[in-house]
C-alpha cells in the first residue's frame, strides 16, 4: 500500500485517492480555432513517461480536493506534492512530461 501525503489531510492510504491523469495540460487559448487533430491531441494525447511524472490526484474519500504530485513511474516514489495551480517544485532530476510536439499517427489527416 502506498502512502500519499494529501496537502490538506496529511499521509493517507492510496485507496482513499483517485488518479486524474497528467497534470499541467493547458486548456487551448482559442479552442474554436483548433483543427480536429489539435483538439484530439489536447483531449487524448498524453505523455507516457518513464521516470518522474507530474500528475493530478483527488483525495476522494477525504477532503475531496484535487492536488498535483510528482511521482516516479518506475519506483512509485512520490517526490513532491503541491496544490492545484502551483508549479512543480524544482527537483534534482528533470520532470519529463513537459509538452512536446507529437508526431502524427500513421494515416492521420492534418
Amino acid at each position, binding site marked *: 500500500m502506498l502512502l500519499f501525503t494529501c496537502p490538506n489531510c496529511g499521509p493517507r492510504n492510496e485507496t482513499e485517492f483517485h488518479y486524474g491523469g497528467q497534470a499541467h495540460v493547458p486548456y487551448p487559448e482559442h479552442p474554436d480555432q483548433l483543427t480536429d487533430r489539435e483538439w484530439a491531441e489536447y483531449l487524448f494525447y498524453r505523455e507516457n513517461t518513464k521516470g518522474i511524472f507530474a500528475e493530478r490526484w483527488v483525495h476522494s474519500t477525504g477532503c*475531496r480536493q484535487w492536488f498535483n504530485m510528482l511521482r516516479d513511474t518506475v519506483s512509485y516514489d512520490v517526490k513532491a506534492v503541491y496544490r492545484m495551480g502551483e508549479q512543480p517544485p524544482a527537483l534534482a532530476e528533470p520532470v519529463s512530461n513537459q509538452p512536446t510536439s507529437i508526431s502524427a499517427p500513421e494515416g492521420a489527416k492534418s
Partner: protein
Amino acid sequence: MSLLEKPYFLMPKGSAEMANSVNNTGVAALRRSPAEHLWTDFTVGSVAGERGVTLREVPFQTMVGIRVDPVSEAGVRLADVTGGLPVRCGEVTTGPAGVSVLWLGPDDFLAIAPGDAQDRLPGLLVAALGDGAGQVVDLSSNRTTFELSGPSARAVLEKSCAADLHPRSFAVGTAITTEVGKVPTPLWKTGEETFMLFPRASLADHLGRWLLDGLKEFASDRNPSWL
C-alpha cells in the same frame, strides 16, 4: 405556497406550514432510523468487562452541510452561529446548544447537533449565509450516527480502518474523514474510548453488521490462539 416551492426551514417558526411539517409529532413518531432493526443485535452483541466494547445508534441527530470560504464575510457570519469553523483537518469546533462542526475539507464542513435542533439550526444557518457565496443544506436524513465505545473500541476499528488511530496521532476531540470497512465516513473521537461514526443511511445496515462482526471476538474470555 407548497412545500416544494419553499424549504420548510425558511418558514417562520409557528407558521401554519411549519406546524404541519417538522413539528408534527405524529409524523416524528413514525420515523425509522436507518439501523433501528439492528438495535437488539447491538445490545446483545455489545461486550462488557475489561475487553468490553459497546455499539449503539444515536438516531435523528441534526446535521447540516456547510460549503463556504471560512475567511469570507459569509463564513464569519456562519461561524458566529456555530461557535467557529474548524480551520484544518482533524479539528472540531464546539458551539452553543451542543452544536459541533467537523472539518471535511478546506471549504466543506458538517455541523452536528442534537435532534431537537432540527427545526431551528438549518434556518439560522441559511439566514447567516444570506446572499453570500456558499451553501447550507439540511442533511439530517443523509447520515446516521454510530457510537462505538469501550476499552476495545479502537481495536475493533483498527481491523477495518486504515487511518492511524493511535492516540499520539488521533487525539480526543479530533475527527477525520476516512473509510471503515470500505464505507466512507467521518470518524470522530469524542472520548478516550469513544468513537462516533457517521455512515450514510443506505450503508448503515452494512456498517452496523460489519462492526458487530468486529466486536464478536472480544466477547470471548480466552485470548485468541494466535497470541
